């Protein structure tokens, strides 16, 4: 009788605990910042790069070179002095021959895709090490800025056309 009771109590306790653990996971891990899974293989070395605009580049986004994933974005912060974005990239240890004059560009994968960092190799003989910096960067293309530029260039052209039409009269 008591043996069955104990099974019941233990079983219920484990069930309730499991349920609350699941609830806790859902409420704490899901909405918010910070990546739990998706770590770089064999722990990478960290380099940083500064951008004028990172778009919506997220922590955990992949870092690629020639289309192959070589690391991931570790952190995205803003420099209080320069007012540029400082992005820390974690690169896998086996890719230790990336020239120091390489270019880091923020690109979009696919149509509605996520932002990622693409590296293009430079020609230098020295390679990036832990704590190094990538000097040459290209910011993300922000769609709104492009559209604004398009509109203002169209308005400019039609203004010119009107002006030259009036001159001809």
């Amino acid at each position, binding site marked *: 009788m008591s043996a069955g009771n104990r099974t019941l109590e233990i079983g219920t306790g*484990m069930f309730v605990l499991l*349920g609350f653990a699941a609830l806790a996971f859902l409420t704490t891990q899901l909405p918010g910042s910070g*990546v739990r899974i*998706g770590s770089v293989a064999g722990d990478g070395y960290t380099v940083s790069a500064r951008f004028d605009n990172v778009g919506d580049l*997220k922590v*955990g*986004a*992949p870092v690629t070179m020639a289309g192959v994933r070589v690391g991931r974005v570790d952190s995205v912060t803003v420099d209080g002095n320069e007012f540029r974005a400082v992005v820390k990239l974690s690169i896998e240890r086996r890719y230790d021959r990336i020239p120091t004059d390489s270019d880091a560009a923020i690109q979009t*994968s696919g*149509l509605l895709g996520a932002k990622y960092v693409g590296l293009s190799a430079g020609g230098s003989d020295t390679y990036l090490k832990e704590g190094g910096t990538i000097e040459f960067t290209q910011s993300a293309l922000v769609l709104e800025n492009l559209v604004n530029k398009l509109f203002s260039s169209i308005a400019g052209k039609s203004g010119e056309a009107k002006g030259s039409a009036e001159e001809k009269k």
Partner: protein
Amino acid sequence: MSGISTSRRRGSAPFDAFGSIGGVALFLLRILRQCGPALRAPRHIVAQIYNAGARSLVIVMLCGLFVGMVLGLQGYDLLARFGSESALGVAAALGLIKELGPVVTALLFAGRAGTSLTSEIGLMRATDQLTAMEMMAVDPVRRVVAPRFIGGVIAVPLLTAIFDVVGLLGAHLVGVGLMGVESGSFWSQMQSAVEMDDINEGLIKSVCFGVACSLMAVYQGYHTVPTASGVGLATTRTVVVSAVLTLILDYMLTAAFL
């Protein structure tokens, strides 16, 4: 003669329907009134949480895993057409937390635990145990029905949370493991897209579904025709009515949240 009784039966059908709905509502009030006293004997409630919840764990986790895996597959296929595979985490998480988790868990609960509740209480009714309790001045609603109702209402949200988590892991398994979605993107996009409001919505839904399914199960058992075939009919009715009620409530709650 038979023509008159047929039309009388047909004509009274709407009133019977209203009567049943009224009966369910009044029964709910009666249970709620007995919940206070029932909580003073927690070991009955613990036993019912075990019956309703812990025993449904296997089916909920299994189904959660496969629902998550299917979500991973279908979601990947759909998103790949737009080049947005990295949004798989978002699609799976929102789909599970807001809709699939609460609804599927409620349906599974109605099928596994609801039928068990109905047949248990129905058998007590058919063997006159409930009447015997009344004659001993023990309120059967307080002693038998309320603990089962409370156990169900507590178990369903917990089961839903477990379903959600296992489903997410299944989607991760298929998306990242099988289809090659970026693991970092999977989680980071999900974390930036899921808001506390979504989780609250899923939680509130699961509580409402828990109340609805548990109520249906105990109501059908308590008011069953006290024969063997009557209990069988009541069990079937539990599943059917619980399912329909859950989906209707789902629409209403979703509309209310948007």
